[in-house]
């Protein structure tokens, strides 16, 4: 089983040199820590910035410079600032090469639920619906099973949807899956170290498939 950093390390391997990347809150944020130094990426913050850098040194925080999580940040050389319409314009126009976000549920057809739990107070979808509906290349970082042991990889999502037929790749603490959006199904392509195909199959409620020899993940970072 991977911990959160393990998931982030595995996802970091999907990032190619020259990518523009949008990282969601939570595990996706951790991915930034595992991008190799020789891989040049530009991080987009959807409030209106390309070229997001590390947190500022103490005393150098600037209230005019925050990320989509409202944290104080810095800008790297080559940054550009723009308004929110252009920010989501470039997202919709698929100029962002890779979007990494968390999820509460994913279905075998690539539907995703990650913004609302009935009975709990709704805070809003923020930019999540725009991101999932627009991005050509999304990786979902999520836990495969809930604390009560239920699979979150489902035939159909039970929670209100954030987007439909948009998720093609999922990385969990147990495995990497590709989703067949057209025909439905989670195809196992990598196992976490020490986790068997059977364990993964048992933790997948949606339709599951696996080749004969599913390799173990090689973790980057």
């Amino acid at each position, binding site marked *: 089983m991977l911990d959160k950093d393990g998931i982030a390390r595995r996802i970091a391997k999907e990032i190619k040199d020259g990518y523009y990347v949008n990282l969601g809150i939570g595990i996706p944020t951790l991915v930034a820590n595992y991008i190799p130094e020789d891989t040049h990426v530009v991080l987009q913050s959807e409030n*209106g910035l390309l070229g997001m850098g590390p947190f500022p040194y103490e005393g150098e925080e600037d209230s005019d410079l925050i990320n989509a999580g409202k944290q104080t940040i810095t800008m790297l050389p080559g940054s550009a600032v723009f308004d929110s319409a252009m920010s989501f314009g470039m997202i919709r126009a698929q100029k962002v090469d890779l979007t990494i976000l968390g999820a509460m549920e994913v279905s075998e057809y690539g539907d995703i639920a990650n913004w609302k739990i009935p009975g709990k107070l709704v805070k809003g979808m923020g930019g999540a619906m*725009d991101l999932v509906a627009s991005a050509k290349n999304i990786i979902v970082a999520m836990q495969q099973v809930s604390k009560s042991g239920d699979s979150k990889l489902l035939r159909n999502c039970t929670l209100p949807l954030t987007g439909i037929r948009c998720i093609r790749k999922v990385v969990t603490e147990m495995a990497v899956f590709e989703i067949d959006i057209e025909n439905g199904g989670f195809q196992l392509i990598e196992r976490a170290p020490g986790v068997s195909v059977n364990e993964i199959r048992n933790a997948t409620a949606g339709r599951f498939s696996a080749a004969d020899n599913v390799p173990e993940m090689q973790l980057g970072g």
Partner: protein
Amino acid sequence: MINKVVTDAEEALVDVIDGMTLMLGGFGLCGIPENCINELVKKGVSSLTCISNNAGVDDFGIGLLLQQRQVKKMIASYVGENAEFERQLLSGELEVELIPQGTLATRCLAAGYGMPAIFTPAGVGTEVAEGKEVRNFGGKDYLLEMAFEADFALVKAWRGDTAGNLIYRQTARNFNPVMAMAGKVTVAEVEELVPAGTLNPDHIHTPGIYVHRIFQGANYEKRIEQRTVRKYEGLDVTKAEDYAG
């Protein structure tokens, strides 16, 4: 050049009345029209519909209007971080319409660019799509979303000139330029007001034609919502806590 200068928020908002629809710029607490919000509180106008990406925190930003129960309806993309907001929502005092952040921004842009509606894929297949027209272009489904209409747009810029031209600073830009274009009346408050001719015409983000009234604001707090820092020594970009992600 046309002079758009008013004395202060009181003069700028003199004709804001109960029941109006207001747009308020800012993302989180960054780049919000502090002086205008304070004036709305002082003025006590009520039954407002507020269009803003967020709803502030309990004691700052739009939260101040919520405290005084001046808001009838909130149109936003994310409204966390606000206990009073939650209370009013659960008690049914407050109406809330949640819409995707990009849809919010683009519906402002549409208003400012004279486009009655736009197509966006955001929300297709979700509850956001309920009652909306879905249309397929090139094999992909899009929702038809209407341009906003707002009686007033209240925006905050870094520098502005007497002709109403505005320049924003860093990510305090966010929704301000698109909302500035979308108000029937647009009020801009700026940290520094300069004479027309001071600003480089190539650097202006919002041309003065979109701005009806402008004033230099006072006593900006510019509160930070989440102060995140790294240590001076031992910066290690492989450490999560050192990286903003």
